[in-house]
């Protein structure tokens, strides 16, 4: 009879697996920060008054959405060196994920910005605000509140998608498990622990997003009524 879950194997490999999980979280956080900033630039450029810039942005977003993330990762790591661009695995992974998530999140920003009514733009303009100031002080603060839950869901997705980085030899948690399993064949135990690790992070994160959804639906109210 095959032994299923081997607790000794789990415990003795917990160290490397946790180190892998840490790298997974690091990847997620780095890409989160980069893609939040990058996507905002993409969204604003996509609403520019210069048609050529809008077309470039549109093409970029469509290419990113129309090709697999795994392919984009592999491309960044294995194809770019043929053009003399040799990126460390971690950098290539962050770059590909940022380019991919930046495209999706720019669309989220765009939706949020466009949800702010003409009346808000009129009021800001009538008070002598320039477009840039109105965007920064009036439109974006309201838009970000609207899109916060959606962003949260994207980042939970990102956390799980970092597993694809195992394909470009980044030793995040899944790749770590693959390496260990290749030696001791304890697939069930190792992959179950990895699954539990992912879930232990995503589940609370999803609850947090649910909480954000409830808060943002509640509108703007004083804390001391």
């Amino acid at each position, binding site marked *: 009879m095959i032994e299923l879950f081997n607790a000794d194997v789990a415990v003795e490999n917990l160290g490397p697996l946790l180190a892998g999980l840490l790298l997974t979280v690091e990847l997620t956080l780095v890409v989160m920060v980069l893609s939040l900033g990058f996507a905002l630039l993409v969204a604003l450029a996509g609403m520019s008054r210069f048609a050529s810039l809008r077309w470039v942005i549109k093409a970029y977003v469509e290419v990113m959405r129309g090709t697999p993330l795994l392919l984009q990762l592999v491309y960044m790591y294995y194809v770019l060196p043929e053009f003399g661009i040799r990126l460390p695995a971690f950098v290539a992974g962050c770059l590909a994920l940022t380019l991919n998530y930046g495209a999706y999140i720019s669309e989220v920003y765009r939706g949020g910005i466009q949800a702010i009514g003409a009346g808000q733009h009129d009021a800001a303009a009538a008070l002598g605000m*320039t477009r840039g100031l109105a965007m920064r002080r009036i439109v974006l603060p309201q838009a970000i509140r609207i899109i916060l839950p959606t962003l949260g869901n994207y980042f939970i997705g990102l956390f799980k998608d970092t597993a694809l980085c195992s394909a470009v030899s980044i030793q995040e948690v899944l790749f770590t498990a693959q390496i260990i399993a290749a030696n001791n064949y304890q697939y069930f135990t190792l992959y179950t622990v990895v699954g539990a690790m992912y879930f232990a992070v995503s589940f609370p994160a999803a609850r947090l997003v649910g909480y954000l959804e409830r808060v943002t639906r509640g509108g*703007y*109210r004083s804390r001391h009524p």
Partner: protein
Amino acid sequence: MTGQQPRPMIEIEGLHKYFGPLHVLRGIDLSVAAGEVVCIIGPSGSGKSTLLRCINHLEIAQQGRIRIAGEIAYRDEVGGVFRAHSNRAVAAVRAQVGMVFQHFNLFPHLTIIGNVMEAPVHVLRRPKAEAMRRGMELLTQVGLADKADNYPEELSGGQQQRAAIARALAMDPKAMMFDEATSALDPELIAEVLAVMRDLADRGMTMLVVTHEMNFARQVASRVIFMDHGSIVEQGDPAAIFADPREARTRDFLRTVLER
């Protein structure tokens, strides 16, 4: 002071505005002197709101000239060629004219005092403490000092509109424009907003008011303008316009609205 007549606060010459094929303003000439309260009345679709929005450059007129406090606003015409002013110059002119909208357009993510302080702090770069002090003064003037820390959605429509008036006043505007400021309000809330506007007129503010409140126009206006189909049909002293309009179109309009 020389014996010269001071320039009007707002001067408009030959203003034309088209929305596609629709000719919304058909050559408007209008001048509003400092301290004057001009009420614009007329049927919906007559171009009253568009006129106010052109004065604030929220709509861009295709033809004509606008002067605010004597300065040519928004664009220059040199040899028949228009040259638009920079965004910064446009914003600077707008900052001098307060605007109150039908739907208030308060910023929902800011408290009432935050709404009032926003432009003085970020456009005029006034110190926060000073903007706060002046803001509280204005909120007291419109009867909302106790709502300073509330958010707009916690206020009634009438309160929101009074806050919007305070927000516009916080820029120390040279003139105030009201675009159907009471049209979106429940009937019982209209009076409190009109009272604030009347108080403002008594303080000598230059005002351009698009309104359906005929009693307000009759009692507060120094001049009433009747617009129809994008033109000024008739204007004059409120007593004269309401008691004895010269034009048939004015008579027809007043009959319909006053019979209600």
